[in-house]
Structures are given as C-alpha cells and as structure tokens.
C-alpha cells in the first residue's frame, strides 16, 4: 500500500510545490503555520484542486493534471479528521458515526443492519458506549476526538488523513490521544498522515517525518535519521529546539 503525491498549487502569492511517497506507515507532515501542510491534505482528499501534479494511491489515480483526471472527494477512499473535528452539531454521537457509514466504493448502498452493526462495533472500539444519544456539545474534548475518528473510519477508508486534530487538547490528553491513534492505526492497518506543528509530537509518534518549509520539502526521513543528519540549518534548529532530542 502506498500513496504517491506530487502537487503544485499557487494561492494568493503562496506557492506549494511538494513531492513525497509513503507506505503503510504513520507519516507526519511537520512545519510551522502556513507551510502548506493542511493544504496538502485538502489536495489529497479532493477538497481543493492542484494546479499540476498527481495523487495516486496504490495503482489508482485520483488526480492527474496531465490527463485532466480529478476524482471528487466523495469518490476518494480517505478518512479525514478535521482540525476542529467538524462533528455535525445537529446530530447525536451515534448519528454522526452513522453518517459516515457509506460504502467506500460508492457503488452499493449499505443495508440498515450493516450500518448499525458497523456503528456498534465503532462505538465499542472507540469506547463511546453510553454516549450514543449525546450531542457533540455535551461530550468532552477527548470523546469528540474519538467520535471524529470513528466517523472517519466507519467508511473503511484505505487511508487516514488527520489535520492537527489534537492541537486543542491539553498535554495529558494529547499524549493519551497520540497513543490511541497509534493503536488505531495498527488495528486498522492502513497508512495515516498526521499534520502537526509540534515537532515533539512528530518525533514521538511517526514512522516517517516530512518536514515542510514555506511550501517546499526540507527533509524526509525517520525521526532518527532527521535527528542524526538534519538536511539544513532550518531542520537542525528544529531538532535542537526539541527537548526530547537533546
């Protein structure tokens, strides 16, 4: 399983020009605000369109500017968790999760039983039992994260895209969610991309770090590789400023 991304996009004077590839692993897009990380996720998911480039998962082309192919977001097999989680405020926890119970290929309709079986499994796996009838504003931050993850995964996506979902949490909960995310990824056994601007988080959780610098790639490697051989001064400073690496 591998995702190949090469995209260029110009927006209001900002130029994103990146190329990378990941396997079945947990990859982190790291960079400061405005480096183009979230935009990359949107381009992968089809929520925005690159000016040029390709997005290929395994052998399926979801975007290719040269052949003018661009699949709509509904037809792409990515589970997306938004920074603000984007839980539907007018739906309960169960309704939010059920809303994601759509066949990933979009070719068949899931039966009611199939949907509720999947939802029951998600509720159990994500420790949400007892919260089914609550609305998003009636549950805690950590519970909201788990609902957002369950909703993204009930569709059985081929890959998980996470746009800084833990940034609003305080530290103890953030550590817990990181661990939980790792477990979830191992259980579902699908590649995941996590966007973060917290280098310590990137180093602690990832198999691979992709470092963004003003819309370009500064370095790609495992946390150890980046630690031992930073590609440039920018990366070296990042490594030095991160307490866990000192």
């Amino acid at each position, binding site marked *: 399983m591998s995702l190949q991304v090469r995209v260029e996009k110009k927006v209001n004077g900002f130029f994103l020009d990146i190329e990378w590839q990941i396997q079945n692993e947990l990859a982190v897009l790291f960079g400061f605000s405005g480096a183009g990380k979230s935009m990359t996720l949107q381009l992968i998911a089809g929520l925005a369109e690159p000016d040029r480039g390709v997005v290929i998962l395994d052998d399926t082309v979801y975007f290719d500017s040269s052949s003018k192919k661009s699949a709509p977001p509904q037809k792409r097999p990515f589970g997306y968790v938004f920074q603000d989680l984007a839980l*539907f405020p007018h739906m309960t926890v169960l309704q939010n999760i059920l*809303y994601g119970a759509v066949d990933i290929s979009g070719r068949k309709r899931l039966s009611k039983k199939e949907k509720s079986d999947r939802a029951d499994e998600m509720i159990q796996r994500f420790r949400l039992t007892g919260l089914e009838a609550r609305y998003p504003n009636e549950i805690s931050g950590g519970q909201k994260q788990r609902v957002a993850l369950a909703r993204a995964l009930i569709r059985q996506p081929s890959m998980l895209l996470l746009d800084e979902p833990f940034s609003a949490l305080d530290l103890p909960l953030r550590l817990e969610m990181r661990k939980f995310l790792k477990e979830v990824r191992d259980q579902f056994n699908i590649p995941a991309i996590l966007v973060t601007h917290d280098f310590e988080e990137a180093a602690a959780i990832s198999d691979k770090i992709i470092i963004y610098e003003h819309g370009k790639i500064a370095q790609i490697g495992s946390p150890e590789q980046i630690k031992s051989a930073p590609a440039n001064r920018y990366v070296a400073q990042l490594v030095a400023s991160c307490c866990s690496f000192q």
Partner: protein
Amino acid sequence: MEEESVLFSVRLSLQVASISTILIIISGIPVAYILARKNFKGREFLDMLCTLPLVLPPTVTGYYLIVLFGRNGLIGSFVYQWTGWSIMFTWYAAVLASYVVALPLMIKTVRAAIESVDRNLVNASYTLGHSEIDTALKVILPLAKRGIVAGAVLSFARSMGEFGATLMLAGNLPGKTETMPIAIYSLSGSGEWSKAHLLVGMMTLISGIFLYIANRYSKRII
C-alpha cells in the same frame, strides 16, 4: 352582509399569504442555496434581480408584473391566446404580487444562514462520501433551519401586508380581490371607521406576532 366583506378580506389575505409563502419556500431555498454556494458569472446580477422588489416602490414592481403578465404582456399575451384566461384582476394576481414582493426577504435571510454554515462541516460530509444534494439536505439546510423559518415568517408577514403591487395587478374588487390592506384603503376612503379600526387592529396584531416569531428564530441562527 358588510361583516361578511370584512371576514372575506381576512380570509383572502390569509389564503394569499399562505400560498405565496409556500411558493416562496419552494423556490426561495434553491435560489438562496445557489447564490450562497455557487460561483458563476452573473451571480450578483441574479441576487440583485431577486432583491430589487425589496427596494423598488411596489407600484414599480406591479408595473413590471403588468408588463409581463398583463393580457397584452410578454407572458400574459401567450397565456391569453392559448387559454383565453388572464391572471389580471383575479386573486391569483394577488398571490403573484405577494410572491414577487416577499421573495427577497426569504432569499436574503436563507442565503445568510447558508453562508454561515461552517465550511468544514460541508467538507466533512463530502469526505464521508455524501453527494452535494445529500449534504445540502442533511447538513446545510438543517443547520440553516432557523434562517429558513425566519425567512418564511417574514415572507408571510410581508405577503399579508402587500398593497401596491396587488392593487395594480388584482385591482380592488370587493368579494373577489379585496385583501385586508386594500379593504382598509377602501374603508378609510369611504369613512367606515369602525370596520377600518377592526382590520387595522387585526393587521397590526398579526404582523406583530409574526415579527416576534421571526426575531426569536433569526437571533438563534446557528
């Protein structure tokens, strides 16, 4: 007999306002959705066209409607040619006038409500495999519900009070097209104050109630 004419006006006004509000809801929501969420050439022109009756004197709106739907009008002449029927001076004309004059209130309110729905919620629905129509029906419109209710209530109140365009299109035919505002106009002209008082009081009460409901809803738009 005379009490009957007062009752007739009340009933006709409620009937006209109800039907025009139903038509406004059916047509106003899709137009507001398109204006709020689609980028196309002529979007602002369409918005202006739909909003114009809000600022034009109702007599001007009525004039345009006569040009369009009158017996010799652009559309009306065809209808008359084929069916021998004209909308002019029927209660349908009162519905048409109310519809055109009150539609902008619905479109403006619903457009604002749809635009205020968080973009990420819409994107989340798309990434969960739901089509645009599905997303509109299950996410956007439910979240814009309060704006829709407020718009419908305002439109109803405006339809109830429609006078100028209605007078031009439907005329003032007692027992046929005499709505409450037109009856009030006639009654005060002929000095029948007690009946005029009654209708004015009812009109004020109904409009006040509707405005109160509209305010309550629009304040709580999510």
